């Protein structure tokens, strides 16, 4: 545009400077000169008008095409998109949004924020109502899908789960934009799949563990009644325990791999949890002595069952990788704002060149050596994932031939942090 104006101005200036002079040299009769000058003026006006006309026609066609392209893109999106004004009222919606809400036409969606929330009963997973304006607080981060899940009641009464994200549109500042976009992705199918998965995993747990329970209990009954050789029955018992732990790990890894992020946090004393787990595991080991170093209560707010899994995995490893037996020491300590749990063994340790990989799933630090002690090699991967989801960390120190100590640290619960 700017360039065109400059060229136009330059040509205009040259015309003004040289056209009069050209007429003066070409035509000598003053009368005719006047006629030529008038005609020249008209030609100038005519040509400029024509150019202006062509130019305007071309640029509006361009704008119209751009507008159509944007509209086509907007309408062809799979995600429902609402455009909201500064008051949160819906001023525009695409076809996907219309389909998602199950209404007949777009106009039914163009309502005030509160009317929209009421009609479509937007609510959070815990059932509380949520408004469109609340949804605006969920900003879209590049490369991150999904902000918050809400449910939406369709016009036909069906319930849909949607992942909501929003972004401010140009105009006004970022905090109070004139227009905002709300993008709604239908995740109902995914949600249904998650429920099916949970059902499947709980059926699988039941189906695998019931026969294990029967075998274990009968072996113990025979031993109790003195009806069979105790050492043999104890082997059955131990192997059932081993199989049970593997089934548990498989279920855990499926849950984590399939993205079950839900932690069920509750306040409890970590010290007491460690004692409980060690107490239960004592009966499963015969050549090792499990020792708990007692200390003061360590309050945390965490998913107790998941953390018990972590500790079981660490103790299980400690037992397996110290085949000569010996002490396995579990301890809980407070370190600043953290609770640190450690499990120490005096076993084979981890070869230094393999230490970097021990938290990888399916990695066996002792593969191909005489010290491959079996197991699924997923315990540490699961443990790291669980600890990470608590905002904690997991690490180890190991000396080949002298044993390993595994640690995990969690934030202390709020109340405890204030005291210390």
């Amino acid at each position, binding site marked *: 545009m700017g360039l065109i104006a400059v060229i136009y101005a330059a040509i205009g200036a040259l015309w003004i400077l040289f056209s009069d002079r050209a007429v003066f040299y070409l035509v000598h009769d003053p009368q005719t000169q006047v006629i030529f000058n008038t005609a020249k003026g008209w030609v100038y006006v005519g040509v400029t008008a024509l150019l202006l006309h062509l130019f305007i026609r071309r640029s509006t066609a361009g704008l119209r095409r751009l507008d159509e392209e944007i509209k086509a893109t907007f309408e062809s999106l799979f995600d429902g998109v609402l455009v909201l004004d500064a008051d949160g009222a819906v001023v525009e919606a695409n076809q996907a949004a219309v389909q998602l809400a199950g209404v007949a036409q777009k106009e039914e969606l163009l309502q005030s924020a509160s009317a929209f929330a009421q009609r479509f009963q937007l609510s959070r997973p815990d059932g509380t109502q949520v408004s469109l304006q609340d949804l605006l607080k969920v900003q879209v981060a590049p490369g991150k899908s999904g902000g918050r899940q809400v449910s939406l009641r369709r016009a036909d009464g069906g319930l849909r789960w949607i992942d909501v994200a929003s972004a401010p549109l140009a105009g006004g500042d970022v905090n109070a934009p004139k227009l905002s976009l709300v993008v709604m992705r239908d995740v109902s199918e995914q949600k249904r799949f998650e429920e099916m998965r949970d059902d499947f995993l709980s059926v699988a747990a039941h189906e695998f563990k019931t026969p294990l329970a029967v075998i274990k209990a009968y072996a113990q009954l025979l031993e*109790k009644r003195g009806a069979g050789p105790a050492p043999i029955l104890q082997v059955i018992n131990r192997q059932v325990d081993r199989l049970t732990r593997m089934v548990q790990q498989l279920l855990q890894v499926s849950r984590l791999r399939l993205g079950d992020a839900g932690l069920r946090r509750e306040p409890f004393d970590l010290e007491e949890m460690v004692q409980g787990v060690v107490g239960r595991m004592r009966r499963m080991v015969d050549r090792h002595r499990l020792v708990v170093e007692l200390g003061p209560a360590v309050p945390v707010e965490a998913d107790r069952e998941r953390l018990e899994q972590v500790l079981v995995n660490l103790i299980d490893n400690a037992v397996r990788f110290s085949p000569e037996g010996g002490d396995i020491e579990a301890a809980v300590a407070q370190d600043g704002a953290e609770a640190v749990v450690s499990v120490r063994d005096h076993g084979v340790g981890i070869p230094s060149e393999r230490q970097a990989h021990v938290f990888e799933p399916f990695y066996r630090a002792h593969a191909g050596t005489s010290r491959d002690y079996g197991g699924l090699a997923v315990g540490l991967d699961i443990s790291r994932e669980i600890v990470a989801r608590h905002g904690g960390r997991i690490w180890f120190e190991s000396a080949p031939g002298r044993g390993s100590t595994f640690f995990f640290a969690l934030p202390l619960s709020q109340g405890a942090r204030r005291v210390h």
Partner: protein
Amino acid sequence: MSTDGRQVLVVEDDRDLVALMEMVLTDAGYRVATACDGVEALARVAEEMPGVILLDMRMPGMNGWEFAREFRERYGRKAPLVVVTAAENARRRAEEIGAEAWLEKPFDLEDVLAAVSSQLAKG
């Protein structure tokens, strides 16, 4: 072994496990009643209020949750419930239905006996 004659009700759908529990508890001197689902368990309870109920959660027909709700509604806390489950979150399951204790499958027989005797001792 003193067991003060009160009955232990085993609610479990796996026949082998029911048979086992019966043997173990009988060996230990308890009187045992069994039921393979919630409906049958309610019938047993109606015949005689047991001293403790060992309750499997996942059963065909009326499951453990439904039985627990029904039992609490009709009889309150007349008998303690001990949840016996293969689910990963046995402790939470027990809390959900307000059970007095829980055992995770596979269990140790010693734990079953300990749970039964401690619940009977409380009553």
